[in-house]
């Protein structure tokens, strides 16, 4: 186990170092800078120059890189150029929305996908299967920003059950927070659920051919119970693999949905920070995403071991 953790840690560090260099270099060649963005076209050039000096933009690249890394190592992520407040606070605030949002979306995805996938597999090649798979086909073809507006139209504007967007923070209570994340999570989940349902279906079909399924039925376990207790867990390995990829996709792919529901999430922060050339925020966010992806991979690997006792954590 210790070896396993050591390996993961090494991966994490290597990933972060790689990410830091790439991100820094890519952002270096972006045209425009924060001072110019903050001051706008009508500003006096002297004022722009003064701001650039103040933000430290006039220093050579390697000095800035070094400052950034040194800051990271000491836990100081620096101050956002645009918001002039600590980047760490900004990111933490956004994570408090994005992580629950992604988790909720993932939960919807999983529940929907498993229900649809298993049901379709149970009715393999029958009408129910064909219908459900047709539905997933449509699900894959729906863009999430479009679906999001549709949800708002129905649930917020017509029925007025939910607010059309926004997020008041967790201070208002868990329930209120979850309520405002419900529609966004749903619109994020639909496409992913459609993809995952297809994968679940084929994984379940595959497992259903295994001998132990016949054994279970020979014990008198009903077909439905076999599906949910014996088959599903064995089919989870490919499903979890895809879920891992989807989660990292969701984490940062929320930009569009956050835009439609005007949620203060990480995706929108990155998008805004890039367009404002608030590079210090971008860099740190990307590092965070890279770290999160490694962590999600770790979780997936642990899940493998949880799902399948044959896989020991030590040989992942």
């Amino acid at each position, binding site marked *: 186990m*210790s*070896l396993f953790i050591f390996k993961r840690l090494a991966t994490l560090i290597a990933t972060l170092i790689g990410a830091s260099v790439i991100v820094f270099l890519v952002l270096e060649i972006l045209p425009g800078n924060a001072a110019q963005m903050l001051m706008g076209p009508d500003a006096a050039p002297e004022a722009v120059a003064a701001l650039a000096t103040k933000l430290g933009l006039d220093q050579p690249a390697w000095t800035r890189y070094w400052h950034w890394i040194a800051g990271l190592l000491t836990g100081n992520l620096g101050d956002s150029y645009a918001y002039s407040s600590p980047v760490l606070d900004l990111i933490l605030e956004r994570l408090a929305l994005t992580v629950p949002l992604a988790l909720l979306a993932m939960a919807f995805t999983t529940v929907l996908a498993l229900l649809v996938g298993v049901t379709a597999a149970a009715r393999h090649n029958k009408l129910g299967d064909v219908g459900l798979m047709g539905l997933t086909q449509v699900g894959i073809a729906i863009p999430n920003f479009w679906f999001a507006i549709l949800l708002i139209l129905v649930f917020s504007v017509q029925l007025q059950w939910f607010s059309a967007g926004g997020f008041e923070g967790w201070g208002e209570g868990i329930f209120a927070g979850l309520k405002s994340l419900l529609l966004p999570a749903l619109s994020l989940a639909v496409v992913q659920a459609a993809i995952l349902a297809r994968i679940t279906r084929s994984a379940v079909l595959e497992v259903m051919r295994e001998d132990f399924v016949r054994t279970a039925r020979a014990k008198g376990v009903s077909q439905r119970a076999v599906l949910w207790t014996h088959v599903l867990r064995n089919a989870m390995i490919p499903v979890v693999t895809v879920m891992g990829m989807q989660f990292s996709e969701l984490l940062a792919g929320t930009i569009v949905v956050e835009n439609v529901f005007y949620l203060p999430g990480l995706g929108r922060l990155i998008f805004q920070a890039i367009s404002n050339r608030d590079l210090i925020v971008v860099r740190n966010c990307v590092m965070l995403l890279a770290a999160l992806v490694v962590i999600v991979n770790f979780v997936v690997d642990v899940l493998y071991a949880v799902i399948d006792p044959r896989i020991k954590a030590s040989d992942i």
Partner: protein
Amino acid sequence: MNQPASTQPLLEVTDLVRHYALPREKLFGPPPLVKALNGVSFSVAAGRSLGIVGESGSGKSTIARLVMALDTPTSGSVRMLGRDLHRLPRPELRAARRDFQMVFQDPYGSLDPRQTVARIVAEPLEALAETSRAEQRERASEALAAVGLRTTDMDKYPHEFSGGQRQRIAIARALITRPKLIVADEPVSALDVSVQAQVLNLMQDLQQQFGVSYLLISHDLAVVNHLCDEVCVVWQGKIVEQGPPGELFRNAQHPYTRTLLEAVPRTPTGGTLLAA
């Protein structure tokens, strides 16, 4: 090519050891080892066949992989016509492979389902890259004929054949380079008795016809008895007993060999089933 001295054995295996390292459990500890083979030596003279029997996990397949140079030994050597296979440079090893081929256990798994029989059978020739396409096809058709299949079968796919026919295809593939040695790892254990009989007969015929030697691996004593001049009994990575099959089975010395013999179910009647 230089003519091997007549005294030289076709295959000579000396002190073969193979340990597998399992994934490390601790960060700074030695990885746990599986001692699959612990010093195995034997030799096969040209034209003679050797059987290897033993229980599951005793290291039989490991021997086969090492002899085929599909895996490298921890120590020890495999000499084919006097040359140490594991020391040969890659191109020479490739060229040397014409002399030894392999037949696998699973007639369903050892043929690529997406290739035609012609391509499968010609694969060793293709790997040697000395012959033209047309020539390969020609030779493949000859090899198929030798194992009793038709030329019209060449453009079919493996799934269109029964288990016994597939094993024939696998044998045709092994024969196409006219090898001196065929390593067969449990070639009939996945087959039905009646099909098994066909394949065993075929192997026997080919031995008489082309003078190939077999290194036959099986856990079925009767199969080995049927085909081999000599038998090794492997137990926990070592050869515990060796000799001509008739003698060995009549007069087993090692306790494991005796257990093995005792466990064979006997049929109650005489006649053709049991030797007089």
